[in-house]
């Protein structure tokens, strides 16, 4: 699909965009694209935090956490370390949750 900012559809009729409209849409696209890394990191942290929360109960004083579970949770905490690009974030593989 062509991604040139050129046309809008108005009530079914293709209309060429004005220069002002093109500038406005380009600004919107630039702002979105510039925020890609932050969005990816936010999504990654949200997912990581959710996975951590699923095993939080194992840290209660009346529970015993296995070494595998301790390693798993630490891996989740460290999962954002060293990520500097969108590609880095997209390449992240979550660790496998050990049997409880």
């Amino acid at each position, binding site marked *: *699909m062509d991604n040139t900012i050129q*046309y*809008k559809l108005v009530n*079914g009729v293709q209309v060429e965009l004005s220069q*002002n409209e093109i500038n406005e*849409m380009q600004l*919107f696209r630039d702002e979105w694209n510039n925020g*890609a890394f932050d969005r*990816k990191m936010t*999504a990654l942290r949200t997912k990581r935090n959710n996975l951590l929360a699923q095993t939080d109960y194992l840290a209660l004083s009346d529970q015993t956490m296995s070494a595998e579970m301790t390693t798993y949770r630490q891996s989740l905490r460290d999962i954002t370390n060293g990520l500097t690009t969108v590609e880095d974030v997209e390449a992240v593989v979550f660790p496998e949750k050990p049997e409880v």
Partner: protein
Amino acid sequence: MALSKIQAESMNLADTYAFTGTVSGASDVALISTQTTGSASAIDFTGLDNTYNMYMVTYQDLQFASADQTFIMRISDDNGSTVKTSGYLSVTDFSYYDGGSLASNNNASVNFHVIATDVGNASDNRSCFGQIYFRTPATARKHSFLGATSIYNDNGDVVIYNTATVYNTNQTFNAIRFLGSSNFAGTFKLYGYN
């Protein structure tokens, strides 16, 4: 066709009928217009008025030119010549699930009504689908918009977006514009309700 085809409690539709003229009283919902594009930077519905008490726009089969895109809506009071780029209070709750991990988040904007973020461009049904409601646009008020959208994103998550927006000035409008952070394809339908 003989009137004997219309019976007391049923209608025999064994033949093919062409309905002409105006059907009234059949429904409170009217399809006003449909727009389909293979690639556009924006889609406008113009000429909105108070003919109906409530309007709904549905969008379906949306596909974007590239991955990880956002999709928004803005209003216009000059039939789309210009659109309002500020003055909104838009809040979105969204949850995503990949079969193993369920997560929720939210975002907000003062520059547009948020329809969805994280929209993909793959062709295998990873398109977004949803709807937006609003009331009598020709009445000056702080207009509200309510939207719901589902997508299947490029990360393999199913995502639900629920968005509420208020345009935070007493305002009329007569057009709405849908645009994305890339060009998009899809079908848009405008309905009126009484």
